[in-house]
């Protein structure tokens, strides 16, 4: 029996994704949140690769490639924002960011 089937990778990636969500929900440090987002992205990437392997189709790789690009861009802008926020509020605690209301 081959464990390296899409099924097992599905469980793995689901678990990773849930861990990412968990992190987002229980942590307040914005940088940790960013990290958790990366975990979730990676869970999705993993799924792509697993299915690409399953179907013998390399389109999935391309998608992962692009999602990495986006993640990189996001990290760059996101971190720049975070530095800015820290300078302004002197904290990275998202519960202080409650100005987003009417």
């Amino acid at each position, binding site marked *: 029996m081959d464990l390296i089937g899409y099924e097992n990778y599905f469980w793995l990636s689901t678990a990773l994704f*849930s861990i990412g969500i968990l992190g987002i929900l229980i942590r307040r440090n914005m940088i940790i949140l960013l990290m958790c987002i990366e975990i979730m992205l990676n869970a999705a990437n993993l799924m792509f690769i697993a299915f690409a392997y399953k179907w013998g189709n390399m389109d999935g*790789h391309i998608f992962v490639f692009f999602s990495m690009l986006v993640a990189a861009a996001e*990290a760059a802008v996101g971190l720049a924002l975070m530095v800015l926020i820290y300078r302004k509020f002197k904290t990275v605690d998202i519960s202080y960011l409650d100005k987003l209301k009417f």
Partner: protein
Amino acid sequence: MEIQNIIFIILSALTLMCALGVVFSKNPIHSGLLLVLTMFSISGHYLLLHAQFVAIVNIIVYAGAVMVLLLFVLMLLNLNKDNEPQKSIMVKIIGTLSAGGIMISLVAVSKIFLVQKSMQGRPIAEDFGYVKSLGALLFTDYILPFELASILFLAAIVGAVFLGTRSVENK
């Protein structure tokens, strides 16, 4: 038991443990470092799945560039265990429940939509996952998204630089 399966189990365990560590570690620095480990183990999975190029890119981009950036920021902001904000226990419980809920629903979805259908895989080609074949795909079928991605990068660079310089001016 084949060697691949053993590697899979070990890697999976490592991935999950590291990911949990990212979430639960008190010190942001530790989180960052554990995330790097997670990335490495995921790259291991990629290798198992014959995605060599992606595995390498993953290490270079994520573990290399992004994570270094993250850690750099962490250290720049001088964040450590002492001033790490904590949530109330209630929020933590709700969060855990929600995350569990997501997991259960995803599992349920997969049980219903994926597993029930018999999915006959296809054998992989000789050059599956090679840089050459990936490149051929990227520069033929996906040339437009590729170019758009470069524009996105440009925008991201401009954005990051702009944000950085504004803050200097403010001071």
